[in-house]
């Protein structure tokens, strides 16, 4: 009779020990907070990256920040062929098609951003 009681207690003791042995951090909860970027900001960041890599590939040195008033012809010195290359790079990145009338009208970054925000 005593043997059974003792053996049960040993089993319980082992079970309790097992519970204690579970790492304390397993139940710890972490909370992360992040503010989501708006669509305009996402488009703007993506476009800035495309323009930066494009002018780097062309060997154009431009140190100023990418503002919306940045003119493609005057500031970045892009000719009509360069503009088409930039438009195709944007099309590939945003997975959309920009028609000729719209792309001909692009003179500064702000116009491209506005078009992408409306159409992407």
């Amino acid at each position, binding site marked *: 009779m005593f043997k059974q009681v003792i053996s049960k207690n040993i089993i319980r003791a082992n079970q309790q020990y097992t519970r204690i042995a579970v790492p304390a951090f397993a139940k710890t909860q972490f909370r992360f907070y992040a503010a989501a970027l708006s669509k305009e900001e996402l488009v703007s960041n993506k476009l800035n990256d495309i323009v930066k890599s494009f002018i780097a590939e062309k060997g154009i040195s431009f140190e100023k920040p990418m503002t919306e008033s940045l003119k493609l012809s005057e500031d970045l010195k892009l000719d*009509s*062929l360069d503009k*088409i290359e930039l438009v*195709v790079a944007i099309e590939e990145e945003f997975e959309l098609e920009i028609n000729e009338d719209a792309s*001909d009208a692009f003179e500064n970054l702000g116009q491209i951003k506005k078009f992408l925000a409306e159409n992407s």
Partner: protein
Amino acid sequence: MRKLNGLQKQALALYKEYIRMAYTKPVENQVKFRKYSKQLFVEKFNKVDRKDFSTIEYLIRFGTRKLEALQNKHVKDINI
């Protein structure tokens, strides 16, 4: 900005097709295809007067045939 005439628009549309073709090539060679296209257009079209319609038409036909050859999926690299 000066307004483009019909043939100039055709030439720019052809250039767009060249750049699109470059994006279908292996990533490591895409820059070479883009440079080749730019070189070809600058070399051929910049020397022509914008009112020399017959020469521009010939160059567009020439460029279209060349593009068809380059669009072949077996063309994977190019030497400039």
